[in-house]
């Protein structure tokens, strides 16, 4: 295809991505180094005869508006927003490092800082859910693959539901069930033998709840991919293993899993990206008191009456950097493959 023809074919989609993905990234980076203008203050001295003079500080509305209109981005603050308490919190971190007696004390203080708290949950979620869903997905795929033909279709249909359903809606459905008055919640109260038992009350249990939701939501994806991979498994390899006297477990370990390995890499890559952006479950499970994620912080800063664009932008940039680090092994490998060609 000629360059010219390619250009015209690619123009609409390229333009859409440039205007609404590439430019916003630039805009986010720019906003993250500008803070909103502070109000201009003026001091007025009021002198009343006999009483004396008082000075009063008020906001100079006109001057404030003028400066905001002249420089709508705000004032340039460099990396200040990145280093403040809401983000990397360098000062607080240094202080905690200097004064903390033990490691436990240091971690406690670290988790009081919003960004590190969110980062801790996001990373825990990503790196527990991703391997777990691969294992669960593989188990479901192996089990369903050994079923009767008619049952397979039915199982695939119902297995797709947790994945297809809107994440917010899926987490609400589970949240209502684990509510202390819901069906699972009251069962747990019965098991715990404590009428006040609630999954929502403790940080640890909230994390477990969100992680279980994450596996429930994403395991079907792994299942479907692995199931498709199992259909292409060469029969003669399994038969050869059987003739060699391999047990079922050995067949799975030495024949099936190596055959599925490229798919495991694929699922792990996709799920790392998707789990790192965990957000809807935090809203759906109303869990922000115990578990926050990077995406949730951005959402929280942007919502509400005061849209804190600068704060949200700085968190966005840090999140993008996080994604880039997660993605870098893949990119390096793709680049090597490309160079090798």
């Amino acid at each position, binding site marked *: 295809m000629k360059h010219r023809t390619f250009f015209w074919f690619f123009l609409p*989609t390229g333009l*859409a991505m440039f205007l609404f993905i590439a430019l916003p990234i630039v805009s986010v980076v720019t906003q993250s180094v500008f803070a909103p203008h502070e109000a201009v203050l003026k001091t007025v001295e009021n002198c009343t005869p006999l009483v004396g003079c008082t000075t009063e500080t008020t906001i100079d509305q006109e001057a404030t508006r003028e400066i905001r209109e002249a420089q709508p981005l705000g004032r340039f603050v460099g990396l200040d927003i990145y280093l403040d308490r809401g983000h990397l919190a360098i000062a607080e971190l240094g202080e905690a490092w200097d004064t903390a007696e033990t490691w436990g004390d240091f971690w406690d203080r670290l988790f009081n800082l919003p960004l590190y708290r969110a980062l801790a949950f996001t990373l825990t979620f990503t790196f527990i859910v991703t391997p777990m869903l691969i294992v669960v997905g593989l188990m479901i795929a192996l089990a369903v693959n050994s079923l009767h033909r008619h049952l397979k279709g039915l*199982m695939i249909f119902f297995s797709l539901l947790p994945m297809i359903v*809107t994440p917010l809606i899926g987490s609400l459905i589970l949240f209502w069930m684990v509510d202390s008055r819901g069906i699972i919640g009251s069962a747990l109260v019965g098991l715990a033998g404590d009428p006040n038992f609630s999954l929502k009350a403790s940080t640890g249990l909230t994390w477990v709840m969100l992680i279980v939701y994450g596996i429930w939501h994403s395991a079907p994806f792994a299942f479907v*991919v692995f199931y498709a991979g199992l259909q292409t498994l060469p029969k003669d390899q399994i038969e050869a293993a059987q003739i060699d006297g391999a047990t079922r477990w050995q067949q799975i370990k030495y024949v099936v899993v190596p055959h599925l390995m490229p798919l495991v890499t694929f699922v792990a890559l996709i799920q790392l990206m998707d789990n790192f952006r965990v957000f809807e479950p935090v809203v759906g499970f109303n869990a922000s008191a115990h578990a926050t994620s990077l995406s949730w912080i951005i959402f929280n800063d942007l919502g509400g009456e005061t849209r804190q664009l600068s704060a949200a932008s700085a968190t966005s940039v840090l999140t993008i950097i996080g994604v880039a680090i997660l993605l870098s092994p893949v990119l390096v490998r793709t680049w090597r493959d490309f160079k090798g060609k």
Partner: protein
Amino acid sequence: MASKAQRRPLGLSILIYGFVGLWFILAAFPFFWTLWGSFKVELDFFSIANWTNAITGERTKATYDSAFTGAAYHGAWVQEEFWRNVINTFMVCFFVVLTSLTIGTLGGYALSRSGYRYTFWLLITALIFRAMPPITLVAGYLLPFFEWNVWGILPTTIIVLVAINQPFTLWMLHSFFQNIPKELDESAKVDGCTQFQAFRHVIVPVMWPGVITTGLFSFLLAYNDFAVTAMLLSESNRTMVPAIAAFLGTTYTEGNVMFAVAAVVSATAPLFILVMFFQRQIVSGLTAGAVKG
């Protein structure tokens, strides 16, 4: 006829059926439970006294003389005007799918037919864009959209969702078009067609299976989005998912949780139907990128 070596011992069969059964319950039961509960009053679905009330509907009987009531649906659809959000959702989904397929097909076709090096870099860029959480871009949209006075309306959100959709659409259609033999459009070009005519008359008639599969995923992305629609739509233009989130804010205090339950069931129903009719396409779409490695 399975050979003796392949026959399963009884214990393993029980284990397999037990596991499949457990997964079936985990995957399907929450949906049926919520569907059943949406026809009850709140005191039954969230029962303090006895959990079996949610099945028998004690309080629902006491209030409405019947174990089932449509009160929650009436509250959501009529009182809270959820139908507006439903219409908004379907408008957004329809235009997002239409636009992103139109421009994605052209782009994906071009990527699959051009052998130059820049196609590789374009695809890698698309992969990076695909990896970024959409919420990280929202802060970049707000200022310009306020400035140009286009915040809060459906067309803006549609364009943004189309753009966010493009990386995925391009990857999927690219790999799909690569499976259509190049000789088809090459021979059309030999016969004197321009590239576009070759695309129009030779490729378009055979591309529908791939386009339908990609369209399903575009639909799901637009339908399921929460972060972008919640931030970019004004209250009167909300789609279903942000509307449900907004319900929660007010209903926990007003005791109208059942409105949200009814809205959730209403929003799940179209997805249920979608999976029922397009199960094969969804499965093939999920595995398309994977199996080829």
